[in-house]
């Protein structure tokens, strides 16, 4: 507001007019406000609702004496359909999830951050647009298509190149997941770099920094929170991904000893077994419990990402 003087009169006439407004208008406006409010609140409602639903399905087995939580978390014995001795240990699958995610991040983080730095600092405007569109396309490929590529193309290549007995393993799943996480890391990482004020770049350049020195010494420190958030969101994507890893990792329940071992991830296990487990059985409920475990993992990762982003705003 440049000129403060007409302000009070304007407010006054406004107030008079609103007193005379038809009831219908007032009601319509109020219900619209309520609707928008509901839209905003719904996200919380859905998250809590989903968690409660999953928890309700899992609770009977969690609190029964046939089941021990420490065995669930720390045993690698997963025999849900054994006639005599059913065992529900998910350690091997947790290890599977973490090993595939770790490998994927080892590939995706350097690639993704490198691409983000290239797009934001080194390439011309036309190439930048082309790359951004291409990367968005990469993010739009359905995960089952990625899984298909892993199952057919990648697995043959891996058998040929490494001599592994099976081509569907951690390496395969890791590469596929890396390719799926890269677009997220690139687009969020690029946003973080773009958010670095141009004055920092000018300061660095005017002191005689080369482009690389500028990136290393100015931009990365300035954008580190945003870049961390990009990486953590990539991790979140990799942990939660189901269909592609189900198809590409070989689905064998075992603690892996190398990147050419097949594994099964928590997500893939749920997807594969939920349809066969009789509703209400222990097996069925344990699968929901795995859901809660996954929920917890992604929640922690997202919370960490969020806190990293908040770190940016504080400055």
């Amino acid at each position, binding site marked *: 507001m440049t000129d403060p003087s007409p302000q009070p009169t304007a407010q006054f006439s406004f107030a008079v007019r609103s007193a005379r407004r038809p009831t219908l208008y007032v009601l319509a406006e109020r219900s619209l406000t309520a609707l928008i409010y509901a839209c905003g609140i719904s996200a919380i409602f859905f998250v809590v609702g989903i968690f409660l639903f999953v928890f309700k399905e899992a609770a009977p087995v969690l609190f029964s004496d046939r089941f021990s939580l420490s065995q669930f978390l720390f045993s690698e014995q997963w025999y849900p359909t054994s006639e005599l001795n059913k065992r529900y240990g998910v350690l091997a699958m947790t290890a599977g999830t973490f090993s595939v995610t770790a490998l994927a991040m080892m590939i995706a983080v350097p690639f993704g951050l490198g691409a983000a730095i290239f797009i934001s600092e080194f390439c011309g405007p036309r190439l930048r647009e082309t790359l951004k569109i291409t990367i968005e396309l990469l993010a739009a490929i359905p995960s089952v298509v990625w899984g298909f590529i892993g199952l057919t193309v990648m697995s043959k290549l891996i058998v040929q190149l490494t001599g592994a007995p099976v081509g569907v393993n951690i390496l395969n799943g890791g590469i596929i997941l890396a390719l799926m996480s890269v677009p997220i890391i690139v687009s969020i990482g690029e946003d973080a770099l773009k958010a670095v004020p141009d004055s920092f770049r000018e300061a660095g350049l005017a002191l005689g920094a080369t482009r690389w020195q500028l990136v290393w010494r100015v931009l990365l*420190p300035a954008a580190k929170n945003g870049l961390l958030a990009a990486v953590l969101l990539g991790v979140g994507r990799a942990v939660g991904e189901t269909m592609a890893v189900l198809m590409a990792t070989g689905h064998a329940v075992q603690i892996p000893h190398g990147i050419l071992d097949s594994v099964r991830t928590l997500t893939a296990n749920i997807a594969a077994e939920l349809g066969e487990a009789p509703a209400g059985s222990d097996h069925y409920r344990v699968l929901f419990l795995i859901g809660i475990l996954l929920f917890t993992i992604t929640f922690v990762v997202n919370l960490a990402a969020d806190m990293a982003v908040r770190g940016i705003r504080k400055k």
Partner: protein
Amino acid sequence: MSEPPQPCITTRGLNLWYADFQALFDVNLDITRGLITSLIGPSGCGKTTLLRCFNRVNERYGYVTTTGEIRILGKNIYDPDVALVELRKSVGMVFQRPNPLPISVYENVVFGLRIHHPPGTFTRAELDEAVEKALIEVGLWKDLRDRLDRKATSLQLEQQQKLCIARLLPLKPDVILMDEPCSALDVEGTRAIEELMFALKGHYTILVVTHNMAQARRASDECIFMLLGKLIEHSRTEDLFLNPKNPKTAEYIEGRYG
């Protein structure tokens, strides 16, 4: 002054285009070494553009074309054999908004030393000494000596701007370019920066762009008036303000436009 003052910066036939728009027209000037020279003129007259030619920071936008020559201490900075990094080492720049880097005060001051020398060139003691010397020179040492690890972006604006000057000093520049260095500061801050300019004068050739005619008048030895991309008048500050030769200068100083 017995010997004739040697010009520090000389431009001949300098033209500059932003894409199709010509921002500088045939600028010829000689800037005396060791003095404070101010650049004045209405917005859009090309004074900042001219300033940004002297360390070639204009070139980061790909659409800038420059013709003519600029000699700094005798060397044409547009020669193909000029190393941009070395040029910017000897021609420092202070910006309109203080822009310390988002690292500690200490690292800001030694930033120049670090980027211009391979790692391990300096011992910790040498770096400490450089920081102390630079901060003493700009009058920040007393305030910041115990807070060198503080983030530079958390300082007051005035301190930030002094720090931006301090970080140029370890590189021992010949020229310091200042682009409206006080426009983000209050009266006290402005006075502090002006005093600092006087203290640095002689050791460095200082070029300062300013919107504030009064500042040009009180804080510079020579003054350049520019209008629409052309250099209109360049003389000693007192002469320019008291006896402007060009009627356009006179009108601007009187406040008829601008």
